[in-house]
């Protein structure tokens, strides 16, 4: 089968690989119909995530059709269309039974820090991802959700990660009606966090980025105010001025380890790699939010550490919340928001790219050229 394959930092290619097979009675094998490239895939692409092995296939946002079933899978049939959460979860361990699917302890032998994740390095289990014609899906009784007959694969594709992650980010901010919410980052997760903040009744939503085309997209998608941090001098001071000098009630980091904006963070985190990426967005969240405010972090940072202004957070009495998204918990609710037209998730797709051209798609997404917000890969034979 054809599959995106990692060859080293900034080098990926579609190559022929052996087809996945049922390795456990709870597995299914899916024929992939759509696979998105996530902003966090770029952290792998740039070689920031430890234990990213040459030959692995990325991709944790995908839909597909059930091709083959393990003997213990009783809630799916061959031919079912499904959308798959990026977490691989057993559904019944200490954490899963508390709906903390992102913390499942029975799917990742490589590390305790996270559950298994499709296509996200051996730090999260080393499972091959969905940027391929076929993908193995473990614990198929737990994760995949059938796509309603009246909905397209693309309409629900982002239930796999970007939409629930953005929604959980807003939810972890404990947003109250009328709150001012600042979202750092106007990538797909940032867009969904902005939209979700509005769904939760935020009075003002302010999006921060430095790419004008992304800020323009955010204004259209979520109706938010926008700030280009490269045009306002000190962004923290600017945000305080916009919020009566006190600071926003909630700040959300939807950027992660490859943030721009602070030379000190960029040099130590991205150039020298003596911390696990640039923690610029966390630093700005903590500095900007009002005292006793909430900071919500869904931007991805790798082990082992980051330089973060923890003393400021403590002295301001902040609540910090963060986690990998517990996707399965959010899927039914967010499906309703899509179905009822509250959120048009599909509209963030800017590019549809044949799987064969995956290298070009990564390059475009990484360089943020051609107005790219969200590229989606289309495997050979998948219907358009």
């Amino acid at each position, binding site marked *: 089968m054809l599959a995106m394959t990692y060859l080293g930092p900034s080098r990926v290619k579609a190559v022929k690989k052996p087809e996945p097979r049922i390795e456990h009675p709870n597995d299914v094998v899916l024929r992939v119909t759509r696979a998105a490239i996530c902003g966090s895939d770029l952290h792998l692409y740039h070689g920031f995530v430890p*234990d990213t092995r040459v030959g692995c296939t990325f991709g944790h946002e995908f839909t597909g059709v059930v091709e083959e079933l393990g003997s213990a899978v009783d809630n799916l049939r061959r031919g079912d269309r499904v959308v798959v959460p990026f977490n691989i979860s057993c559904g*019944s361990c200490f954490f899963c039974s508390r709906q903390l699917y992102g913390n499942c302890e029975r799917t990742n032998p*490589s590390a305790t820090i996270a559950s298994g994740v499709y296509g996200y390095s051996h730090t999260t289990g*080393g499972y091959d991802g969905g940027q391929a014609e076929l993908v193995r899906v473990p614990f198929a009784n737990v994760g995949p959700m059938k796509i309603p007959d009246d909905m397209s694969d693309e309409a629900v594709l982002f239930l796999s990660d970007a939409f629930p992650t953005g929604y959980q980010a807003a939810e972890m901010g404990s947003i109250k009606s009328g709150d001012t919410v600042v979202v750092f980052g106007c990538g797909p997760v940032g867009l969904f966090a902005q939209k979700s903040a509005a769904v939760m009744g935020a009075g003002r939503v302010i999006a921060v980025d430095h790419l004008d085309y992304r800020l323009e997209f955010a204004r*259209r998608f979520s109706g938010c105010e926008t700030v280009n941090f490269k045009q306002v001098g000190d962004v923290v001071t600017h945000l305080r001025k916009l919020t009566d000098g006190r600071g926003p009630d909630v700040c959300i980091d939807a950027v992660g380890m490859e943030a721009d904006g602070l030379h000190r963070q960029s040099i130590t985190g991205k150039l020298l790699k003596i911390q696990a990426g640039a923690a610029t967005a966390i630093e700005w969240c903590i500095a900007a939010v009002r005292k006793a405010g909430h900071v919500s972090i869904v931007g991805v940072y790798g082990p082992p550490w980051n330089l973060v202004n923890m003393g400021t957070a403590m002295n301001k009495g902040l609540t910090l919340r963060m986690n990998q998204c517990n996707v399965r918990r959010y899927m039914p609710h967010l499906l309703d928001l899509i179905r009822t037209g509250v959120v048009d998730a599909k509209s963030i797709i800017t590019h549809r790219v044949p799987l064969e051209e995956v290298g070009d798609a990564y390059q475009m997404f990484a360089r943020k050229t051609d107005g790219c917000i969200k590229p989606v890969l289309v495997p050979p034979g998948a219907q358009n």
Partner: protein
Amino acid sequence: MSQSSIDRPHPTPPVDRDPRDRPGVPMIPEPVPAEVVSLVLPQEPEVTVLVSVDVGELTPVFSTAVPPRGLSGLMRRRAYAIPEHLARRWLLLLLADRVDVWESRVRRHPWLTGGLAALAFALMAAGGRRR
């Protein structure tokens, strides 16, 4: 590549204004009773699967994609024996990743790599004779 974009602002009704309407509230709900927790048949390992010292044993389900190999594999094996809270585990894995890239280049282009190694050896030998 095809490109599309939205061209209209989308109205957003605050349908989840009440926190009770949000699926992640409370953050940690009551777990289901312990007797409901299912046993999972363990997957049989057919290739080398490294296990973190902090995990302790193979999980019931795991990936068999891209098993460790070569020098990078030895480095990864060493790293997995180091507890996850120690930075040297992750730094060793990052180093193994870079070694893996070079090993894969050698595997993909053995003749070119052999030729370059022979050339380097010849140059070093010539330099030694001159001294």
